[in-house]
């Protein structure tokens, strides 16, 4: 067991809207070990980004963190004074966001913006910070960094801007990098390049990464552990192998089936998950997925606990797995049901 870098326990975040309290995140728990790459997967509105923002204490009104515990290297982050937060953010915990087109200040040079982070956290002087910015740009694969460092964001393409954001995030050599759908706004070839870059940079340092994505392909490519989220809750947690080959939750199964398979000679049809996620204002009790679950039975009206299944730290929120460690497929076989 590696040392826990980040632990999130029972995190709850709500948004107070006119229609009522939107429980965007209800009870999310997971762990990130030092040097881990954790993927958080889920469809839009599952609470992935809200979880990430809550870790960084960036939830602003009308949102509110209602409960739970977040620990970073054993130290509680809840209720940390703003002054401490400012020393932490961008320094020990950094974040890369979804849309690189709007992430940078359009009237300041790239160099200024990277150097600002270095000057704040590393106490570098103007010249030294700019020099280091050039190094960072080179590291993230930007050609002619000496010239580019003096340019403005509009002179960079989307993929290049995301590289700049990564350079900015990694400039202070953080212990944890949270990447919130870093490739979603970019086209597929650029996506692959950026993921390669992230994995490559990861190998050079021991920065742990929390990668938020809705793309299981991305997860398979770069992550070691995975958290599957749905309707503000963790459905399944485990290693990439657990999730893909020893699937423990019907929702995960649904996600995997909606993914195109390589070399599908029999021209297999993609199977979508029927229905839509539940309303998070006044959600009904019980398993949030039961409305869409092909195997739902009476017991699903009650919220299941996280149950241990086959594998290392592999857990799943499903009544089907009650009574002994096994995968979803095994559990279904036992019940005499075929996978639907």
């Amino acid at each position: 067991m590696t040392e826990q870098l980040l632990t999130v326990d029972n995190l709850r975040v709500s948004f107070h809207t006119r229609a009522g309290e939107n429980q965007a995140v209800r009870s999310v728990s997971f762990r990130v070990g030092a040097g881990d790459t954790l993927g958080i997967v889920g469809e839009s509105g599952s609470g992935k980004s809200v979880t990430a923002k809550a870790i960084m204490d960036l939830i602003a009104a009308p949102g509110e963190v209602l409960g739970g515990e977040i620990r970073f290297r054993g130290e509680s982050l809840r209720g940390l004074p703003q002054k401490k937060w400012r020393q932490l953010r961008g320094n020990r915990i950094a974040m890369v966001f979804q849309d690189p087109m709007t992430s940078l200040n359009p009237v300041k040079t790239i160099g200024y913006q990277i150097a600002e982070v270095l000057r704040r956290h590393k106490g570098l002087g103007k010249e030294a910070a700019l020099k280091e910015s050039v190094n960072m740009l080179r590291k993230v694969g930007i050609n002619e960094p000496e010239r580019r460092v003096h340019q403005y964001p509009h002179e960079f393409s989307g993929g290049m801007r995301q590289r700049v954001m990564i350079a900015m995030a990694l400039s202070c050599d953080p212990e944890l990098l949270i990447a919130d759908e870093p490739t979603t706004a970019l086209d597929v070839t650029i996506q692959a390049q950026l993921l390669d870059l992230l994995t490559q940079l990861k190998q050079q340092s021991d920065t742990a990464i929390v990668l938020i994505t809705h793309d299981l392909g991305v997860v398979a490519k770069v992550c070691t552990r995975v958290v599957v989220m749905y309707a503000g809750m963790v459905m399944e947690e485990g290693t990439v192998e657990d999730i893909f080959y020893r699937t423990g939750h019907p929702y995960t199964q649904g996600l995997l089936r909606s993914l195109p398979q390589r070399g599908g000679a029999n021209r297999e049809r993609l199977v979508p998950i029927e229905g839509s996620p539940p309303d998070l204002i006044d959600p009904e009790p019980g398993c949030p997925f039961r409305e869409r679950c092909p195997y739902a039975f009476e017991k699903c009206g009650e919220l299941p606990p996280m149950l241990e299944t086959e594998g290392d730290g592999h857990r799943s929120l499903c009544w089907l797995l009650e009574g002994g460690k096994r995968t979803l497929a095994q559990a279904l076989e036992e019940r005499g049901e075929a996978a639907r």
Partner: protein
Amino acid sequence: MRRLIIRRLLQTIPMIFFVSLVCFALVKAAPGDPVKTFLPPNIHQADIERIRHNLGLDQPAYVQYAKWLKESLSGNLGYSLVNHMPVTKQILDRLPATAGLMGAAIALAVLLAIPLGLAAGSNRNKWVDKLVNLFAYIGISVPLFWLAILFVYFFSIKMHWLPSLGMHTIGKKGAIDVIKHGILPCSVLAISFLSSYVRYIRSGTISQLKEDYVQIQYAFGSGKRTILFRHVMKHVLLPIITLLGMSMGELVTGAIVTETVFSWPGIGSLGMTAVRGLDYPVILGITLFSSLLLIIGNLLADILYGFADPRIKTTR
């Protein structure tokens, strides 16, 4: 960048021409006969015709315009019908008084508007914002002449702190005396400029603070103050350049009301006197002069904007 400047310069030429045409047409269209205004009522009709002929007023309008334009371009704006002094000289004589007053008022307004607008915008709907907003609304809605009279009543008549009229105390000389006279009109003007500048800066701050890059700055450990001064301020000040360019025209004539109330010997009060006396050459001269300044102001603002905003430099 050079292309931008050249293009803007070329665009200015037809604009100036058009403005001069409008100025001329407006004066021509105004009611009242300049000749009759200045002649005794019992004068002979033949004399009126003779004066008309001498002044060139019997010629068709386009000939009059062409002559006027030609002279104006060489700096001769004609002579006042009232005191027969050259209009150009009168305007230039009064320019320092007006430019000094307006320049001080605008500078004061900008200097105060930046911190007030940023404070209000970054504390939206808190008491600072409400207070700043309240004063801005008052400053925009209250008529200048009324505010001016109120100031005179309170600061001059009641408290005897400051002089209420003119630019000099008779028999006294020196900058301090002029500044003392200038404080009241300058404050009144500054309040009016300040009120609209503050609104611009406030709304700019509010919209910038909603931008993604601001949220992301928080994620990199920036504090509110750093974000406001290092990132938001530059965005917010850009439109002020345009606003300042627009006030170049006002720099000479915007003070008509204020100058009249305080008897400030500037171009505004010169214009007021000219209007009262139907002194066409002076009215025309001042209108043309301020229009020209407005055009130049806008030109400068555009060019400055190009230097200040990196996104403009590279676009053609």
